[in-house]
């Protein structure tokens, strides 16, 4: 086992914090991610990562915790996108794109100001690609609280959310308030993106949001099953990523540790490739399949 688990892996404080953070963040990302994929809002999710990036850069400039910036940025961005009309399918990409561009511009400004007016070093790496090994253990309770909040809220609105994700017309007929449900989901998406930004960085947090759920939905069309598979795949990706990054210190004679985010995204891509292969193989054997079957639970009428 020595080849996989190098000495000190379980006694290292940075690694322990990273494991705990990784587990919570992958859990939230996977659950929120399944709905994001079902709602075809991957692009909105990516735009939110850019807004989170601007928030993180702003936090770095103001000297406050990056998590605060990632969250603040994401939630503001979600509000802006909602206000511009991200819920209508027509013009949704445009609203998303406009917010994305503006946010990236702001991030550029903030990062320039950080570099030219503060003693901070490594902010670009921290904000764009994440620095999970440098996160303080004192951040854990906040991440746990926010994760619990998002998951509870999601359990609360799961039925109207699912129905509106599959057919907004049907949901409207059934009395679902689309605007509310959509807005609430955008905020959950923003929080989820903010959380994963501290693990693999704002730019890459889409990978954790979309990758495992996309793989899971290839493997099962049952929503509950897909969510649990996505959670498993997400946690596997972050944990393996952390282990590989820790081990990479021993791979090269110069003891040059490689970044966690690279390994996490690498595992996510491998998982997706396998899920895709399995899906194709299965599809060929089971003859002509119908389009993805999704079990819809009845929505409480109102």
């Amino acid at each position, binding site marked *: 086992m020595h080849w996989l688990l190098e000495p000190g892996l379980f006694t*290292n404080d*940075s690694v322990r914090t990273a494991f705990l953070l990784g587990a919570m963040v992958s859990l939230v990302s996977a659950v929120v991610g399944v709905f994001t994929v079902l709602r075809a809002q991957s692009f909105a999710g990516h735009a939110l990562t850019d807004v989170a990036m601007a928030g993180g850069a702003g936090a770095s400039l103001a000297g406050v915790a990056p998590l605060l910036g990632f969250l603040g940025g994401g939630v503001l961005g979600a509000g802006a996108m909602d206000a511009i009309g991200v819920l209508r399918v027509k013009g949704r990409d445009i609203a998303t794109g406009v917010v994305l561009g503006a946010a990236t511009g702001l991030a550029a400004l903030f990062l320039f100001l950080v*570099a030219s007016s503060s003693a901070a*070093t*490594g902010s670009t790496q921290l904000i764009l690609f994440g*620095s999970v090994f*440098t996160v303080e253990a004192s951040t854990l309770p906040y991440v746990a609280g926010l994760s619990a909040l998002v998951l509870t809220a999601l359990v609360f609105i799961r039925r109207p959310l699912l129905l509106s994700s599959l057919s907004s017309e049907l949901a409207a007929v059934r009395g679902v308030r689309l605007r509310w449900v959509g807005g609430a989901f955008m905020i959950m998406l923003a929080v989820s993106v903010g959380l994963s930004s501290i693990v693999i960085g704002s730019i890459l947090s889409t990978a954790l949001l979309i990758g495992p759920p996309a793989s899971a939905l290839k493997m099962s069309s049952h929503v509950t099953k897909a969510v649990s598979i996505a959670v498993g795949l997400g946690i596997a990706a972050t944990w393996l990523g952390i282990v590989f990054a820790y081990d990479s210190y021993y791979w090269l004679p110069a003891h040059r540790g490689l*970044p966690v985010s690279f390994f996490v995204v690498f595992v996510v891509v491998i998982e997706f490739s396998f899920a895709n292969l399995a899906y194709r193989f299965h599809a060929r054997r089971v003859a002509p399949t119908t389009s993805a079957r999704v079990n819809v639970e009845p929505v409480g009428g109102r």
Partner: protein
Amino acid sequence: MIPLRTPSAGHEIPRTSRFCRNAVVATSLVLVGVTLSSCGSPVAISSGVIRAVGAENQYANVLAQIGGRYVSVRAIVSNPNTDPHTFEVSTRVAQLISTAQLVVQNGVGYDAFMNQLESASPSSSRDVIEVQTLEGLSNNTENPHLWYKPSTMPRVARAIAVDLTKLQPGHARYFATRLSAFSKSVNSLTVAVATFKKKYEGVRVATTEPVADYLLQALGLVNVTPFRFQADVMNGIDPSPEDIAFQQGLLTHRKVRVFLYNEQVSSPVTVSLQSLAKSSGVPIVAVYETMPTPGYDYQSWMLAEIAALTRALSTSRSTVRI
């Protein structure tokens, strides 16, 4: 801001290339008769102040100490609250360099922007002293903070005196006197280093960043922080968790007697190590990339660092700000 001198109205400046125009502006200030035969333009006479630029304020300080009233010195990097490794150039800096007659810069990639700005406004009448070249160091030199090596500045000062004399041969005596005054005051630094070394040679210390490594070496202290960690902090990449744990162990088990903290290059890792040093009872000594201002010249800055180290070792007192 230095007023830009333009040749007096009586002179006809031919509209030649930008190179020629810049060269004219620059040479018009040189008293010695440097003629630019290739441009064929007249050379204006101006007052006797040499325009000098120090890429970092410690070099600017030595320039001023040698040049005295015959130089007007500007420093490019001098903000004590910023990280010089991530310095961003402005047009003001470009203008300063295009009109400078003498430039002192560090080299080893620390102030690579200087080379770019110099080649952007070429001038045959600009003297550039690069400390890396002066010290005969290769581009692969790992630690660029050359000014912390006690032997560096006396050599830089001599080179400055030579170049100033070349620019204003009439004031050769003046520059020579100031050079010897500088050398004399640097002697007290040499003495302080030797006294410290005699008493504390072999004492183990930890650092966040290689800024003061050359001084620590001269003082006989043993810096047990892996250079890999220091370089990661300097270059703004995350140190590996293995190296972070090693650093934490040095502090919690008090395997080092001083923790040197680079005030100008901070990251979440350095901040958490700083508070760990505090809670573990390892005294902290602040070190800086550029000369802390106001109140210091190069020699008194270095003496203050040595005094802070002495205080940390003799009374376990931290110096969070020198």
